[in-house]
């Protein structure tokens, strides 16, 4: 039913990403203090939000799977788990590049980096379970681990906020990015990366569902 929308959706997402790249590299000026490295911020913040969306997708897939056992739930968990790991990796990598430039150290046990490091480990273990787990029970086991891992996320965030000194700049709100063009590019970057992530999630879920259908057809011998 949605096949006729594949091409337009893909083109729209490609256009948005291209527009973001143009804005970041050709339109927005350099930061006075950090120079061109500051441009990494536009990918860093958006990737963090995209990671949260992927984690939420895993949570939804897990809850619905335990209630209904629909095959799309397992496919959603598989896709969400991979994308959560991918975007957490991007956040960590961009954060460490920023940290090295701004604080002269790639990792300073700064609260938000620690948060994403822990999320990265949680979703690394989730993906390892998808690879090495018992295939018969994989959907159930992924759902349980997905729920536990997702509930750990707010806990990690709040615990670090309460226990650590805030070194990370307040980028969003409360006098973060001041330049209007930079602020506009930052917001555009957040929206684009979230949409890009949703597109990848949709696409990857479809691939996982197709794999399941192919496996089922292979049984009819």
């Amino acid at each position, binding site marked *: 039913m949605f096949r006729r929308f594949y091409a337009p959706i893909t083109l729209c997402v490609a256009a948005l990403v291209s527009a973001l790249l143009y804005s970041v590299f050709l339109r927005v000026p350099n930061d006075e203090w950090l120079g061109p490295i500051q441009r990494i911020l536009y990918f860093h913040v958006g990737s963090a939000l995209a990671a949260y969306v992927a984690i939420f997708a895993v949570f939804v897939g897990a809850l619905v799977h335990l209630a209904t*056992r629909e095959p799309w739930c397992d496919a959603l968990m598989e896709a969400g788990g991979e994308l959560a790991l991918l975007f957490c990796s991007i956040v960590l990598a961009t954060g460490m590049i920023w940290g090295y430039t701004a604080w002269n150290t790639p990792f300073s046990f700064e609260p938000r980096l620690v948060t994403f490091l822990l999320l990265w480990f949680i979703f690394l273990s989730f993906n390892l379970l998808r690879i090495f787990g018992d*295939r*018969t029970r994989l959907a159930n086991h992924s759902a349980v681990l997905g729920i536990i891992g997702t509930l750990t996320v707010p806990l990690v965030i709040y615990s670090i906020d309460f226990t650590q000194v805030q070194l990370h700049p307040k980028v969003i709100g409360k006098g973060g990015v001041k330049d209007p063009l930079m602020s506009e590019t930052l917001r555009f970057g957040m929206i684009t990366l979230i949409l890009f992530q949703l597109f990848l999630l949709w696409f990857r879920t479809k691939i996982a569902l197709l794999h399941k259908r192919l*496996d*089922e057809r*292979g*049984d009819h011998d």
Partner: protein
Amino acid sequence: MKPRIQLAQVSHRYHERRVIRDITLDIFPGERILLAGSNGSGKSTLLKIAAGLITPWKGTCRFGRAPKAQRPFSGFGYLGHELLLYRGLTVHQNLGLFSKLKRSPLDLEQVLQQWDLSDKKHRILNELSRGERARVALARSFLGSPRVLLLDEPTAHLDTDGVALLRSHLAQISEDTVVVLSTHEHDLFRSFSNRVIILHKGELQFREREDQLATKRMFDVCATRRNLQTGGQEINQ
């Protein structure tokens, strides 16, 4: 009469391979079912689904009046390929544990005597031979006079005395108890059964009553689909 177990369009798979396909089956009180089929035909999986130990990948399995089966019911006795016993406990401790959980007031000494296990009751299960452990597993599955008895190859690892004990216990169970017995030793249990179910590659091939089966040849037809027609014609003659 309401069926005690109802399977509706049940399919299940292991490791992306379908082992049971679209099985619809009603099992009524008092039925003594012989479940036959070649290796890998799905007998053990079907029994586990009927016991409620597996939620089928597709389809539903209902038990009695319950609208939906959430987990195994306590009125079931089940013997599978695995022991379902604690190797670190003695025979007496194993049977005592399960009888306490079933809340059935059992004279354990009598049970041990009936299964010829009295002299082994204080031995740790791990110290027993495979055949002796198989006998303890059988005793466990018969505990508490279950309303449904599901036995997967119960004669495996049993000596002739053990088989005789099993047959005598089966002869003594109450009339409305459901028994589903999966075995390759058809001759031993044909007189006991009143219904035959044959599985072939996960599909039901035959589910008729014993009175339509007259010869041993009927059980041979589960080896190939082609032979099934020939076997059916011979029976009807």
